[in-house]
């Protein structure tokens, strides 16, 4: 790897960066440097603050404390366009392309070549063609972006960033939709950018990528800067320890396991959200869960865990394959209705978008999934519904003005409790919890953990997704780790250490598999 | 599921297409049989939403049926001026022998008609006039005269004085304004007092609603003059429901199954025919095709249908 001249100031220097969103501090006194001609990997768990730091660099978050220097001069971009003018190009994780517009128009969005206000389409198209050719793409730049598959779209997004002739290029998980040869093309391009003297900030969860292209690595944890070092000094085990090592101060008491008969059995289960011709979110999952057991599903963003739950729950209809058995009976559901009727319940990871109907009352939300049972011949019984709602929310210790209050007026934590109540109200045999304590304070978390204990004592089998490592390790009897849709590790209670889980989540397949 | 629905859809479409093709085929068969006829007349109607225009086409059809050498092709512009323009252009390129047109608007259709005339095709304009004089003949009725005739009849009926409710058609349209102005002219100088007037937009439910308001406001109403028969009918139903049967009802249009029927059933006391001119159009067309000269403008008279004249097919008015 080419050395950069040590006397030059780093192309990007961020120091003392602190960013707050309301009461929550997301970044605390973070420092970061990136030199010209180097690939600097920014590593950390979910929620460590990497995306926020990048957004500050990209001019998306303009309200922060600390100092940002680009090319030796202090900079304070007020919007992405200004950041672009300063020489910073960002390839976002969520694609920023406009589907209905052509490839050429997208690449030059905001910098459209014009003459007296009229777009110089021919010129633009030629430049666009050159840009995408750099990535080995041979496509018609006049076609609309949405006509291309996700992988090509990601390459177009990359081409867009590269076309800006920036000196600092930030890539946030750029290979999430790419296959191996496409990713290889990208890495080759990164090498040529390095040779040109660009600084590349690279965010990824994949250990194999870090090992392949990183020159230096900076680790963030819980919004704080942990350390920066050349890649040679940071082999995988040490890197993981940096990412994960925390004083487990909040020691929640570990669960008492109550394992019973096998409740759920999956063999080669795959989920295809966009149809069988598209990419599967999870492939060939085989696992089993017993009654009264909590199986934790570990994985970082992009692992496919949430889609796995949705597929199990029937939310993708019949776009799943493989064998699913619930208490010995075949259970590949084609709709959430059927899943609920068979005793499966799902708590989604986004209560506002997919969990609750915020315009309805607490009672209405809590009784929604089980309404069919509660209303024989279709006629509702408001008194019975209220009684059921009271019964199901009291163990949650819900704090709401009344059960008739609109769910949208409750605090986030209380909303989460209502969503949990809805899942439990149908008396499920299998409970799928996706981030059950998102947005809940510490005291309430304890209450939820106790409830999980009670639920398993009642014989419910639980699959649990959580991005908080302590929670995963406290609650799970076993941990199954996913990476890019496949199981990379199955860890027993004793084997499940933070390091082992994170290593598997980043792609290092456990030797036992 | 999706595949099945596509299959069902395609079968449905195929069926529909076959049906339409079948229809077209039978039309062209008829056209071939008609090829033996000598003259082709193209008729462009601005819309077939109004029953009156449906009646006009009916009248033309009935009159043409008497003359087997005539083949009339009907086109419906669905109230779209641009469609009507293309009707004219189509008829010109198809080399029709004569064009009948009941235009939607004067301005946009004057030019195409002039060009048809230049191509040597005579054009008869019905009901609504065009600008200028580049057409062969205009046949239409005079709403102002009809309104005045109605006013005069009302003066006679009420013995020179009385309280009248006027239910107006869309006052942004020429017929509405003409029937209003003509009526006011007809009652000028008499003791007839218009105590309530409202725009019922030619619609029966609106007329009924306005009449209910008038009934609740005025204890004595002698007569209701509505700009069209549906309006008069709506007013009648309102009065009947209120038990105020001794009101005289007068309408305009006198379609056989509507206004005339109402008079025969005793619902209306009088209605004035707004003639469609369909029969006159065919007569004039025949004359033109035979090479005779025809007057530039033929103003159709109206006919009064009231209790005494309805059996005899109405009384012609000057």
């Amino acid at each position: 790897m080419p050395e950069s001249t040590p006397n030059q100031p780093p192309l990007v220097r961020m120091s003392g960066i602190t960013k707050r969103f309301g009461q929550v501090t997301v970044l605390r006194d973070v420092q970061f440097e990136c030199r010209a001609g180097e690939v600097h990997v920014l590593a950390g768990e979910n929620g460590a603050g990497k995306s926020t730091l990048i957004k500050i660099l990209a001019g998306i978050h303009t309200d922060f404390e600390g100092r940002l220097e680009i090319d030796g001069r202090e900079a304070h971009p007020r919007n992405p366009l200004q950041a672009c003018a300063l020489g910073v190009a960002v390839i976002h994780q969520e694609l920023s392309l406009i589907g209905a517009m052509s490839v050429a128009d997208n690449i030059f969005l905001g910098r459209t070549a014009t003459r007296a206000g009229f777009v110089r389409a021919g010129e633009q198209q030629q430049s666009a063609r050159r840009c995408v050719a750099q990535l080995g793409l041979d496509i018609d730049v006049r076609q609309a972006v949405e006509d291309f598959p996700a992988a090509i779209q990601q390459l177009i997004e990359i081409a867009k960033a590269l076309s800006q002739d920036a000196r600092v290029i930030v890539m946030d998980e750029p290979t999430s939709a790419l296959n191996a040869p496409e990713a290889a093309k990208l890495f080759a391009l990164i090498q040529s950018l390095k040779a040109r003297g660009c600084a590349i900030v690279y965010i990824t969860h994949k250990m194999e990528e870090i090992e392949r292209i990183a020159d230096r690595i900076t680790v963030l944890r819980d919004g704080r800067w942990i350390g920066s070092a050349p890649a040679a000094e940071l082999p995988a085990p040490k890197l993981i320890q940096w990412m994960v090592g925390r004083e487990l101060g909040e020691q929640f008491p570990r669960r008492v396991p109550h394992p019973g008969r096998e409740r759920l059995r999956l063999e080669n289960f795959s989920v295809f959200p966009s149809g069988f011709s598209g990419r599967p979110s999870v492939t060939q999952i085989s696992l089993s869960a017993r009654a009264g057991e909590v199986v934790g599903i570990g994985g970082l963003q992009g692992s496919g865990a949430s889609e796995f739950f949705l597929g199990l729950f029937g939310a993708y209809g019949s776009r799943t394959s493989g064998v699913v058995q619930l208490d010995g009976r075949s259970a590949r559901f084609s709709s959430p209705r059927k899943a609920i009727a068979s005793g499966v319940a799902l708590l989604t990871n986004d209560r506002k978008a997919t969990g609750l109907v915020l315009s309805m009352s607490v009672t209405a939300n809590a009784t929604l999934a089980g309404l069919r049972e509660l209303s024989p011949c279709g006629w509702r019984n408001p008194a019975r519904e209220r009684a059921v709602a009271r019964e199901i929310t009291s163990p949650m210790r819900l704090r709401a003005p009344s059960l008739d209050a609109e769910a949208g007026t409750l605090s986030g934590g209380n909303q989460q409790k209502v969503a949990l109540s809805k899942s439990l109200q149908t008396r499920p045999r299998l409970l799928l919890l996706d981030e059950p304590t998102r947005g809940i304070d510490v005291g309430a978390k304890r209450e939820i953990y106790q409830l999980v204990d009670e639920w398993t004592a009642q014989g419910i089998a639980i699959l649990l997704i959580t991005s908080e490592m302590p929670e995963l390790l406290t609650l799970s009897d076993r941990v199954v780790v996913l990476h890019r849709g496949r199981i990379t590790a199955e860890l027993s209670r004793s084997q499940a250490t933070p390091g082992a889980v994170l290593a598997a989540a980043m792609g290092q397949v456990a030797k036992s598999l | 599921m999706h595949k099945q629905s596509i299959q069902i859809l395609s079968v449905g479409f195929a069926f529909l297409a076959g049906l339409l093709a079948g229809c077209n085929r039978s039309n062209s068969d008829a056209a071939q049989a008609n090829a033996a006829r000598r003259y082709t007349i193209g008729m462009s109607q601005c819309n077939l939403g109004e029953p009156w225009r449906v009646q006009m086409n009916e009248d033309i059809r009935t009159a043409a049926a008497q003359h087997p050498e005539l083949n009339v092709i009907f086109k419906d512009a669905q109230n779209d001026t641009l469609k009507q323009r293309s009707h004219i252009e189509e008829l010109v390129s198809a080399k029709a022998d004569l064009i009948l047109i009941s235009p939607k608007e004067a301005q946009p259709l004057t030019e195409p008609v002039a060009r048809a005339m230049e191509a040597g095709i005579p054009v008869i304009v019905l009901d609504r006039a065009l600008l200028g004089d580049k057409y062969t003949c205009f046949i239409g009725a005079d709403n102002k005269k009809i309104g005045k005739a109605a006013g005069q009849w009302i003066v006679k009926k009420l013995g020179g004085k009385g309280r009248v409710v006027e239910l107006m058609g869309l006052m942004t349209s020429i017929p509405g304004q003409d029937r209003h102005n003509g009526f006011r002219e007809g009652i000028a100088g008499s003791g007839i007092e218009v105590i309530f007037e409202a725009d019922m937009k030619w619609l029966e439910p609106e007329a009924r609603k306005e009449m209910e308001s008038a009934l609740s406001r005025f204890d004595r109403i002698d007569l209701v003059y509505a700009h069209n028969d549906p309006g008069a009918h709506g007013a009648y139903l309102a009065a009947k429901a209120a038990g105020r049967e001794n009101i005289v009802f007068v309408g305009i249009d006198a379609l056989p199954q509507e206004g005339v029927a109402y008079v025969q059933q005793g619902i209306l006391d009088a209605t004035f025919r707004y003639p469609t001119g369909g029969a006159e159009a065919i007569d004039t067309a025949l004359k033109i095709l035979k090479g005779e000269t025809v007057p530039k403008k033929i103003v159709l008279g109206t006919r009064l249908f009231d209790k005494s004249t309805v059996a005899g097919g109405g009384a012609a008015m000057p």
Partner: protein
Amino acid sequence: MNAASPAPPPPAWKIFLASAGGRALLALLLVMAAGAVFNADGAFFKIGTHRDTLRQASVYGMLACGMTLVIISGGIDLAVGSVVALTAVCAAKMAVHWNWPAWEVVPASLVIGAACGMVSGLITAAWRVQPFIATLAMMVFARGLAKYASGGMKVSTAVQNADGSYRYVDVPALFRGIDHRILGGNLSMVTVIFIICLALAWVALSRHRWGRYLYAIGGNEEAARLSGVPVIGAKACAYAASGLFAAVAGLCQAAQEQQGDPEAGAGYELVAIAMVVIGGTSLMGGRGGMGLTLLGVLTIGYLDKILSINAVPEAGRLVLTGVIIVAAVMTQRRNRK
């Protein structure tokens, strides 16, 4: 949160006024007050005027009942006006020309309306076509069917014989039964029919699980789906119900005109939507109810009547009605953060 003494709860009347029902009631009372002031020589205070106001608003009100269900589920139904025409034409043909008895005419008409609604509902729910487009297509289709079934002319008591002359048949008992007054001439039958429609819709919405499903779908369709709500079926039934109420309206329209007019109902869908919206049901879906719609029906009905008895010229009516609709909706906007 500090433990300082909490603020006293606001007085009950303030809470009521802040609610959607309170504001709709306020709008209605303001309109009534305007009527009392501009009472057209006392005409506003006569019982007959109120009976007539209710009569003329009833057909729109029936449409508003179905429209409320559809809007709460997050959709819209533009086809109801055309369905009114279609059922008016079919009912007139059946009752007047073919002499069918009432117990055959009524169910047949209801089936026609419900079928039209169900088709729009399935197109929008199962094939995921936007409700605006699906019901716009039905609007055109049903209007075309109405014109086709009627031959372009009104289906009236004047029946044409083979030789071209006309014979006059009696107005069928069904029509006379619908268009007459009861309670000593102080209440129109169509108003009673409207109240029945309103009551049925109210019961379904507030007491049946289908009603709860509609609120959930309109509030957050994906959350509803993931909670096991049968989204497609519930939505399709909402549109079928809208078509059913439009059929009832069509029967009443035919009875009140004593004929089936294929041009009837033009623009009625917009009046129905205005009534629902002024009542306070949100066009976004998930909120609202029949009580609010009743207030909206009365508000627009009385406004129309007051303009009518005062013989306000047409241009003025249009301007005033438009201004009042906008004002009513603006005062209803909830103060969200």
